[in-house]
């Protein structure tokens, strides 16, 4: 009896992963349930879900056409007809915010699918191969990290020209290095684990080990990092929009809405208050979610 217990020692749990493969789905479901138990992360889940619903069902939720101008009703304060008031062209702010969720999701989605794989690839290769590969990759990462990301994004957008796609590229360029560093650190801890060594002894190629073993092991902390990164992406995108370098009018991007609302803000506070609150809420949701996920998937970091 004693001996079976030592075999189940958590230190060897890594090796047990392959036999747990079929139940990976239940692991995620279990994790999700656990996540929802914490009121903070649960509220994050709810807000993100709301954001998704808003984006998908925008025409159903919005009370007005977000681009329709009504010059007879400009700068109207919040009322039953216009819940969040109207802007300088008489457009309904609530509807613009609802449609703006599409822009936000678009940015988050694009940045994440660019940054995730790039960061993972560079990080795991750096960590796994070590030596000069590591040195070169990490020096490049260092250079990118030594710029404050907003300033670098600003410079890139300025260079590429204002616009939503360029903003996405600029944000992606500035946000892969922390992901790469994380993936590298993770890889270093797994590189010499018995289970990777076992795969090497079986003759698995480096690339097979990188993609089948190490990348999968890095996934939990990577997901946490990317979720938290989404919060930053939202803020950076909004900042670019605010400075007039991101999404261009009349696209209802929240940051750009604040930017145009700025001229009227002292008299018509609702022009900036509501889009900003939306940015904050969504960014907060991703932070809460990331925080909750970290506690769940990555218990090492406290």
């Amino acid at each position, binding site marked *: 009896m004693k001996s079976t217990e030592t075999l189940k020692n958590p230190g060897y749990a890594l090796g047990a992963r392959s036999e747990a493969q079929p139940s990976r789905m239940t692991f995620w479901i279990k994790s999700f349930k656990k996540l929802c138990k914490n009121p903070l992360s649960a509220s994050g889940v709810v807000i993100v879900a709301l954001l998704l619903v808003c984006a998908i069902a925008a025409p159903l939720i919005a009370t007005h056409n977000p681009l329709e101008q009504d010059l007879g009703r400009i700068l109207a304060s919040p009322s039953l007809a216009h819940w969040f008031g109207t802007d300088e062209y008489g457009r309904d702010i609530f509807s613009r915010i609802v449609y703006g969720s599409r822009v936000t999701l678009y940015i988050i989605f694009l940045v994440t699918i660019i940054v995730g794989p790039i960061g993972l690839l560079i990080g795991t290769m750096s960590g796994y191969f070590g030596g000069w590969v590591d040195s070169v990759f990490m020096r490049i990462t*260092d250079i990118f990290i030594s710029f404050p990301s907003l300033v670098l994004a600003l410079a890139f957008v300025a260079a590429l020209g204002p616009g939503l796609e360029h903003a996405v590229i600029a944000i992606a360029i500035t946000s892969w290095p922390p992901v790469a560093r994380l993936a590298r650190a993770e890889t270093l801890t797994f590189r010499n684990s018995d289970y990777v060594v076992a795969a090497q002894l079986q003759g698995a190629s480096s690339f097979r080990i990188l993609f089948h073993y190490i990348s999968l092991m890095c996934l939990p902390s990577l997901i946490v990092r990317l979720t938290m990164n989404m919060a930053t992406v939202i803020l950076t995108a909004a900042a670019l929009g*605010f400075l007039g370098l991101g999404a261009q009018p009349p696209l209802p991007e929240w940051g750009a809405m604040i930017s145009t609302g700025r001229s009227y803000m002292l008299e018509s506070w609702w022009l900036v208050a509501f889009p900003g609150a939306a940015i904050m809420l969504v960014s907060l949701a991703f932070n809460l979610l990331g*925080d909750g996920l970290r506690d769940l998937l990555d218990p090492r970091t406290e």
Partner: protein
Amino acid sequence: MTRSRYSGVVRKIGVIFITLFGLLTMTFVIGRLMPIDPVLAVIGPDADSSTYQQVFEQMGLDRPIWVQYFYYLQAMLSGDFGRAILTGSPVVDDILRVLPATIELASIAIMVGVGLGVPLGVYAATHRGRLGDHLTRVITLFGYSTPVFWVGMVGLIIFYAWLNWAGAAGRIGFAYDGMFTSYTGFYLVDTLLSGNLEAFFSALRHIALPALILGLNSVSFIGRMTRSFMLEQLSQEYIKTARVKGLSERSVIWKHAFKNIRVQLLTIVALAYGGLLEGAVLIETVFAWPGFGQYLTDSLLMGDMNAVMASVLFIGLVFVFLNLLSDVLYKLFDPRTQ
């Protein structure tokens, strides 16, 4: 021991040089990518084609790109950053002129960040898992999630338009502009040195809101870091020793645990200061604060290539310097590394 420390320093310097080289390369790439004709930017749109050709060659734009890159490196290393089109003066002069305003703003902001963040973090760590800890978590997450430019505007609406507590945009009331001698470029210091109390209070009214709002972000950062540093220390064995001695909880926390995180905190504050510069770009735009951040955004929007490249390079340098500083501080103040 000495040998390893020596090689550590060499390594560090090597890394810094590579980073600087990378910064230069990156700004060069950004400059080349800019959709602005640098020649037109210098001579203006009305100049004839022969002047254009002349300036084109003068600027070395007819040479291969790697030669241009070489010239660029040479110019940068000799401290020649060119002239800003917007102001017509050398970019370096411009940056030095606007810098005090930003340093003043960021310094007050970092005081806010440390003054609120450290107690918050210590409180959360000592109340781990309890209501206060959860509240701190929510507060700091809010700090991470709020767009700083938006808070700035909301602040202006509430405290300037509605309550009239804060001063309007700018560093000081119009009436006091030029009414005191500029010794340092920091208005709070200069007004005091000039003995002009009214001007001092005007400057204070103007800086309070932007500095407070700028500092909120670092409150979150410093607060969270303080919390996790403290938690790490509080789980150490020597904390138990301190309790066994019969020390009060307060002494255990401040005399023992906190003393151990001071150096770590110092390095974090250096990094947070860099983060403030980033926030300053946005806050200065909102508050029409005539500092480095506004200079950078103005140059960006005007497509002033020289000014943008030099500004980006400058901020990169500041970051490298702050990183280095945090390393040095660590080595200097931690008895374990002496």
